[in-house]
């Protein structure tokens, strides 16, 4: 197992090399450049030339890349060029990462808490009305675009609703039920996290429900379940001890992979709910061609996914002896 892990870790720098070269090249050779965005409509050829020179963008690709790598290896991931001019990229990411991790954690937990039981019920009551309802909810949940849910849920839960009783002067208001961020992100234990985390969790719920349902259906048709029932075990024991446990294995794998996604922010949810996270940073960096921010975020997310994959592979080794032996 140790050899396996080491072999996989050796791949890490190689993968990172490819990821970084491709991202760097896309940034450099893709359309638009940060100097143009910085200058906006006030550009003139002289200024563009001068700033490109100051930032070293007029040097050949390999020199720019090697400079970047040399600096990165010393922990300097460059400075923001456009959106947060002259702020070190490391500082920016360190500032934004906590909110994104908090949001994603709550979203994954909500997803588990809702998705697993839903899938379990749907699988057990396959092809009954209950199954149909669950599947309907799941399809609806992922089909509503986030861009639609954001304003609608905000309107319902975060706004003061005023009512005037007809024919009287009696006015009353209810809400807001959930506070908005208002420039103060308060972390995990604040009601401010509920709405964005719920919307983020819809995808998780969909994946987990479907996986859990499929898993239950598959496991319930296995021979050992028939055997267990034939032995006269109570149905509850069959379901909980024999079926559910096995159906949870792929769920564990999915959750393992999701750990990699903890550091990846969501453009739509973070921007709408003012969550000061990586998603906002990435969005701003992408539209303004803030090279170094994009590079660092891509590398961070790549590393997170590579490690999460490794974690899942190791986990599989434990779960499946055939992989362990090979």
């Amino acid at each position, binding site marked *: 197992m140790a050899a396996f892990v080491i072999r996989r870790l050796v791949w890490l720098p190689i993968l990172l090399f490819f990821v970084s070269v491709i991202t760097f090249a896309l940034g450099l050779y893709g359309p638009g450049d940060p100097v*143009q*965005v910085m200058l906006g409509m006030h550009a003139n050829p002289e*200024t563009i030339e001068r700033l490109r020179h100051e930032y070293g963008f007029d040097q050949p690709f390999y020199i720019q890349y090697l400079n970047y790598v040399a600096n990165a290896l010393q922990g300097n991931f460059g400075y923001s060029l456009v959106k947060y001019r002259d702020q070190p990229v490391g500082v920016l990411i360190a500032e934004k990462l906590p909110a994104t991790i908090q949001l994603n*954690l709550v979203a*994954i937990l909500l997803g588990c808490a809702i998705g697993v039981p839903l899938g379990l019920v749907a699988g057990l009551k396959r092809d009954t009305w209950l199954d149909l309802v669950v599947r309907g909810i799941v399809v609806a949940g992922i089909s509503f675009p986030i861009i639609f849910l954001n304003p609608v849920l905000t*309107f319902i839960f975060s706004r003061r609703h005023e009512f005037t009783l007809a024919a009287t002067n009696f006015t009353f208001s209810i809400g807001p039920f959930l506070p908005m961020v208002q420039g103060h992100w308060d972390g995990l*234990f604040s009601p401010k996290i509920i709405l964005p985390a719920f919307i983020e969790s819809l995808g998780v719920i969909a994946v987990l429900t479907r996986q859990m349902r499929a898993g239950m259906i598959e496991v319930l048709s296995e021979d050992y379940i028939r055997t267990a029932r034939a032995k006269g075990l109570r149905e509850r024991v069959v379901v909980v001890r024999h079926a559910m*446990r096995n159906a949870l294995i792929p769920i564990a794998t999915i959750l393992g992979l999701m750990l990699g996604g903890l550091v990846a922010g969501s453009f739509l949810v973070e921007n709408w709910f003012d969550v000061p996270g990586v998603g906002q940073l990435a969005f701003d960096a992408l539209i303004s061609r803030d090279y170094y921010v994009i590079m660092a975020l891509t590398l961070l997310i790549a590393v997170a996914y590579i490690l999460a994959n490794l974690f899942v592979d190791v986990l599989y080794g434990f779960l499946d002896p055939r992989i362990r032996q090979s």
Partner: protein
Amino acid sequence: MSNSSETGNRWLLGIVVILVVALFGAICLGAAAVFMLTQAGSPAAPALGATAAPGRTSVVPTRAPATSGKKVLRLPGGSGGGGDPPTLDPALAGDAESAVYVAEIFSGLVTLDPNLKVQPDIAEKWDISEDRKTLTFYLRKEVKFQDGRPVTAQDFKYTIERAANPATASPTADTYLGDIVGVKDKLNRKAAEVSGVQVIDDYTLKITIDQPKAYFLAKLTFPTAYVVDKNNVERGGRTWTDRPNGTGPFKLKEYVRSQRIVLAKNENYYLEPKPQVDEVQFILGGGSFMTLYENGDLDSTRVFISDIERVSDPSSPLNKELFVGPELSTQFVVFNTRKPPFDDPKVRQAFALAIDRQKVVDVVFQKMPLVANSILPPGMPGYTEPGGKPPYDLAKAKQLLAESKYAGKLPDITWTTVGAGGAAAQDIQAMTAMIKDALGVNISIQQTDWATFIGQLNDPSRNPYQIFDIGWIADYADPQNFVEILFRTGSTQNWSAYSNPEADKILDQAGLEKDTATRFKLYQQVEQMILADFPVMPLTYSRQYWLTKPYVKGMIYPPMIIPRLKYVSLEK
């Protein structure tokens, strides 16, 4: 058999338990970290908190500051849309979002009043030499930086030298200070010092420019010329603006990126009126300012098109809190005169006549902007009311197209617009449909992102777009900023690649003209020449819509960035 399956199940159970424990462990760790950080950020521990150092950029999510007894004005960030300012450095701020804060924290020799007239600021008065190339500024003696150090002429010299230093990488030094003798040489590393700025004594500064330019003084009202403190800049390193030491009516109290910017009043401010509110809190982000405003959590908010119908309805209570004002900007449909078929003025005119601008404004924009029929927007010095409505004449459009050299062999047209995929903006869809219907032209829409778009536009000699839409917002209140910058032969912002030697000649003449009224007449003359040639079709004059609570007094929404928060008071 039951034995081996039991072992397998135990394994699985173990894994699941480990996973769950790990997940909970991670949550607890995260929670503990957040708890500690929020504790550290609360006022009880000033070492890390918001109250520690003025202008501290905090990584820590702090709790809402106590506002008891203080007069706090709560606004949406930037020019109303939220978001972080790209920079707070006057030498780097070229965009409206940054300038909103820079104009409050810093100040310069001259400023604009709410009527956009140039007024004395740190300079109490100035003389202009006989040849109109030398300006001598006399500084007020009572002006201090926010840390108490007096401002002298040396500070202005340092400010201009710094902005012109190529290592500063100022995007605006060329445009706003480039008229000063020696600035361009220093930017291009041909000189070590800006020869056109001389310190006569502590409170007298002489600036020499390359030619007489009536609009130069207006350029000095832009942030690039705002005075900065050498100690502050040099000791603060690259991120010195985390703790800026300015001279403006407000100082930076707190900046938590993507969350909020808090300005506090500068007790040492030297001009009247002095700031009347204690603090101004800007909420960054920007998901749902309207909801915050309606909940009473913001004192003023900008209204965007999705809420226009609601606030414009006279029976809505919000309508009484509505302010509508000009923005000094004109939106254009631009014809690239270098690209067929728009090299033929008749084709350009035909396209312009085929578009019903009034309908676009009424239906698509819900009357939010005004229909444009001139290059200069209303409110701009030199603007004259155009005679009559914008022309819309389908018969004439068809006739012009038939007379053009592309009659019967019009190539396919692509309209380029900034967009993020999906459906293009509705106004573009409407206008292309009008052209297609009226002229039978095969026209399609191509969307591109802003970075690509602006990159192509900034090189007019190679701009590949045939027809596109773009707006221009005034940098300084002078017609030259529109008429010359956008239409002079060879100007980078001459997007239509328009070239009219006769117009260029009059522009030269206008630049040298002493008398303002005559000068404006010359610009108007050029404007008429341009409009007759149709390199662009003026589409709309933008307007800004704001809601403000009745207890906020003195709030102004000038169409340009000026220090405006000192006029505001709260009566509640």
